[in-house]
């Protein structure tokens, strides 16, 4: 098996910063996002949403709405197939998804979709919503994790029995599943611990906060053939999920990807698309559905609130010898929180032989959670990385020395099972120590903290095609929505293989009928896995080019190599050509121009299920200043250090590091869902759901460490998700350094920090 990770290769384009190919469209307003697309005769859809956090639907009467001038169709869950409760594939339960798209029998959260209207204008559709009569029987609701797990809690799903418990309980519960991960013997290992610290952490429900609200247009023909224009992280996912929910053939649906205005995991499932398809089928007209910001907050993918208990035992050198962790994550209204990922992550950066991790997936009357950048990992890191910092302080050991002493490296067995191959945690920690920020002086009321983040990164399925144009320029066709500059990375990789200028490569994100299946843009997988497909497809083009040149030269194809965009004869072939006085390289443009005569168009294709995504590690270093009068925490200086394996386009790698840090800072300091006593979300807008603005942040320094991933031809490992993992604990550790207080509850907002300051000073 050849494992060339490019560590000895001299690159021409990899590692450079060309202007992204879709850039001009995006700075001129020409790029079309989900809501930017219209069709003639198009109708507009609006959703009726539940005013209750939990209620039985007794009756829905849509007749008055239907009678309104301009209203063309009204649908409820009666208009979509009822799926078996067990209809699932992997972690996705399609019965739950169907019931989330349109509530059936019960509404499970405030904002849960109940009915949809298609009308000639949004205004009329909104008026029609008020005319739909729904009779509810309100039920007691539960929002809090502890309350949801209590024996007398209101039950969301009467059929639900806790999975992963032996024997299966005979009583319904809000605990959807219990999972366990263990190694060694924790109780025995505790005997070797000189210090044991056990702490409880609590984090709030937060939202991805993608700036573009979910949007789509659907057009269904009389023969059932459907086209959907949608902004999502995966148009193949939109197609597969819509077909499954509506029980259509996948070939009946074509999805055309629009530009996506942010996702962060929040656009990895369907909300509007199946509804728009059904409305279009009913009316015979195209239907557009666009969420309001309020709907995005109330009804799409928050990331879960969590309760985490961590107990670490360490010897006097600060080496952790045993750990026990209990993670409780809210799933929202349907099972499927990222607790499994959280449990697999929480101890992953620690070299540790004895541990027990328990995870609980708990349903509550909130929207179904969706993936959010390294799903489940940030709260887990908050707990583990704060406790390890506390151990360092208790033992009076330099926190970085102690952290390094506990770090995993090549050959360490990850807590989630396998042994790590080449990973860059030690290298990032060493880069941290070497950074001037680490030893810079601090001001009054300022403190410094750091923390480690880990994320698995995903491989999964990708397909790409590289087509050589008649003049030697090339088109790269792939199918992963470009959420942060990945077209440029694809073009760089193709240019590198083909040996042509990066601007002579045109990257295209194609629809579901134009390119082979691509899994969703997520899991930090696109530059790794889709990049791998682009490299393979480019290599196929190169191979064909070499063969064509060999035919023209009448030499053996094995005597032709590819160099700087030219076929070059070597060995016996070169000797033959030299004799004929024809030994000159054949440029790609010449091969492309002659393709008709030498065998027809030259294209390369690759489809793969990528193995060996390299795990990502990041270390963040932050200085904060705490205002003791208000509790406000100011980010004074911020440095991110991350192993990228190989940075294909360093500017966009830095962008991921900075953007992830900013999201993590928001999660740490301000963001939270606030509910009132009736289970109504009180802050479903950007004014009250307070995401960081430019003034909240300093410049975010970046250091890219490159420990090549042996499984990628250039050494790439995913970079997108891990930067959201370290900020919360790094900031918590910095706050402790500044004011001597350990924050264990999110957000670390002015009122929460002030309350701790008051408590610490003996106040009420």
């Amino acid at each position: 098996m050849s494992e060339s990770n490019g560590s000895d290769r001299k690159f021409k384009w990899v590692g450079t910063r060309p202007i992204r190919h879709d850039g001009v469209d995006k700075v001129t307003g020409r790029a079309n996002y989900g809501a930017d697309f219209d069709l003639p005769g198009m109708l507009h859809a609006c959703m009726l949403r539940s005013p209750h956090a939990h209620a039985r639907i007794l009756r829905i009467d849509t007749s008055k709405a239907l009678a309104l001038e301009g209203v063309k169709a009204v649908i409820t869950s009666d208009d979509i197939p009822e799926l078996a409760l067990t209809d699932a594939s992997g972690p996705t339960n399609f019965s739950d998804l169907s019931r989330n798209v349109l509530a059936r029998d019960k509404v499970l959260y405030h904002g849960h979709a109940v009915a949809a209207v298609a009308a000639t204008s949004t205004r009329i559709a909104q008026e029609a919503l008020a005319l739909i009569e729904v009779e509810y029987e309100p039920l007691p609701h539960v929002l809090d994790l502890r309350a949801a797990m209590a024996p007398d809690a209101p039950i969301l799903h009467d059929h639900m029995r806790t999975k992963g418990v032996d024997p299966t309980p005979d009583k319904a519960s809000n605990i959807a599943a219990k999972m366990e991960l263990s190694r060694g013997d924790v109780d025995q290992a505790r005997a070797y611990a000189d210090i044991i610290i056990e702490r409880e952490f609590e984090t709030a429900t937060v939202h991805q906060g993608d700036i573009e609200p979910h949007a789509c247009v659907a057009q269904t023909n009389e023969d059932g053939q459907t086209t959907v224009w949608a902004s999502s992280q995966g148009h193949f996912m939109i197609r597969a999920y819509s077909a499954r929910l509506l029980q259509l053939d996948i070939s009946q649906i074509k999805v055309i990807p629009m530009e996506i205005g942010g996702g962060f995991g929040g656009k990895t499932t369907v909300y509007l698309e199946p509804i728009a398809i059904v409305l279009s089928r009913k009316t015979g007209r195209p239907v557009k559905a666009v969420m309001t910001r309020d709907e995005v907050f109330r009804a799409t993918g928050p990331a879960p609130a969590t309760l985490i208990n961590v107990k670490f035992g360490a010897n006097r050198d600060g080496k952790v010898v045993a750990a026990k962790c209990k993670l409780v994550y809210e799933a929202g209204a349907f099972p499927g929180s990222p607790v499994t990922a959280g449990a697999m992550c929480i101890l992953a950066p620690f070299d540790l032989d004895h541990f027990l991790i328990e995870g609980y997936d708990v349903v509550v009357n909130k929207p179904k959670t969706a993936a959010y950048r390294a799903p489940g990992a940030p709260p887990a890191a908050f707990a583990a990385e704060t406790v390890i910092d506390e151990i360092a302080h208790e033992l009076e050991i330099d926190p970085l020395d102690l952290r390094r002493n506990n770090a995993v490296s090549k050959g360490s067995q990850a807590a989630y099972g396998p042994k790590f191959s080449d990973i860059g945690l030690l290298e990032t920690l060493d880069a941290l120590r070497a950074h001037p920020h680490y030893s810079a002086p601090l001001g009054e009321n300022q403190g410094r903290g750091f923390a480690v983040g880990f994320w698995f990164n995903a491989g999964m399925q990708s397909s790409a095609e590289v087509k050589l144009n008649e003049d030697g320029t090339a088109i790269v066709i792939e199918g992963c929505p470009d959420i942060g500059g990945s077209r440029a990375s694809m073009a760089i990789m193709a240019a590198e293989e083909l040996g042509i200028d990066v601007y002579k490569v045109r990257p295209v994100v194609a629809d579901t009928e134009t390119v082979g299946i691509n899994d969703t843009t997520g899991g930090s997988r696109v530059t790794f896995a889709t990049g791998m497909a682009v490299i393979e497809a480019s290599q196929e083009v190169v191979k064909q080019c070499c063969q064509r040149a060999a035919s023209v030269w009448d030499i053996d194809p094995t005597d032709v190599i590819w160099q700087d965009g030219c076929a070059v004869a070597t060995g016996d072939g070169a000797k033959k050509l030299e004799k004929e006085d024809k030994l000159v390289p054949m440029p790609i443009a010449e091969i492309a121009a002659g393709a008709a005569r030498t065998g027809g168009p030259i294209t390369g294709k690759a489809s793969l299920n990528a193995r060996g995504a390299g795990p990502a590690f990041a270390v963040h270093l932050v200085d904060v200043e705490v205002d003791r009068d208000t509790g406000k925490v100011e980010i004074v200086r911020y440095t991110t250090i991350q192993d990228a394996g190989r940075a294909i386009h360093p500017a966009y790698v830095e962008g991921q590091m900075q953007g992830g840090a900013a999201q993590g800072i928001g999660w740490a300091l301000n963001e939270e869902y606030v509910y009132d006593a009736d289970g109504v979300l009180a802050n479903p807008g950007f004014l009250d759901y307070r995401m960081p603005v430019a003034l909240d942040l300093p410049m975010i320094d970046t250091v890219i460490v490159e420990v090549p991933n042996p499984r990628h031809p250039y050494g790439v490992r995913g970079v997108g998700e891990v930067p959201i993992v370290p900020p919360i604990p790094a900031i918590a550790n910095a706050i402790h350094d500044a004011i001597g207080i350990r924050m264990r509850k999110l957000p670390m907002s002015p009122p929460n920090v002030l309350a701790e300051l008051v408590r610490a000073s003996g106040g009420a």
Partner: protein
Amino acid sequence: MARKTHVQTTINGEQTEFLCHPHQSLSEVLRDELHMTGTKEGCTTGDCGACSVLLDGRLVCGCLVLAIEAEDTEITTIEGMASGEKLHPLQQKFLEHAALQCGICTPGFLIAAKALLEHNPDPTEHEVRYWLSGNLCRCTGYDKIVAAVLDAAQSMGGDTR
């Protein structure tokens, strides 16, 4: 439904007429009636700045202006920022600095930054951050946006048109 009102205005230097309902916002009319979808909508409550446009040179959220208020005004949108085949220096610097990821907030940031430089041709980092705090970006952490605006200011040397 009420009859539509006729509005005469100037958009990106061009005389423009449109019909609108009294409840329609400027961003709604730009997008839905005039098909100028470069102006984005992220919230329609004036919190995200994606719909930033200039109204008689003043930076406003298009979603908070009624379309009928556009009568006899001059409006600048993202579609009017480049001239011919030449990008505005801010657009060019955004590209060079990789100051956009998903790009949905980019038109709003560019319009807001243009207004800033017209108002203050040589801003400090703090002034850039303060001015751009009405625009939300969830992808970049603002670092490269701020750098691009500072670089553009320098390259324009006070010529802020």
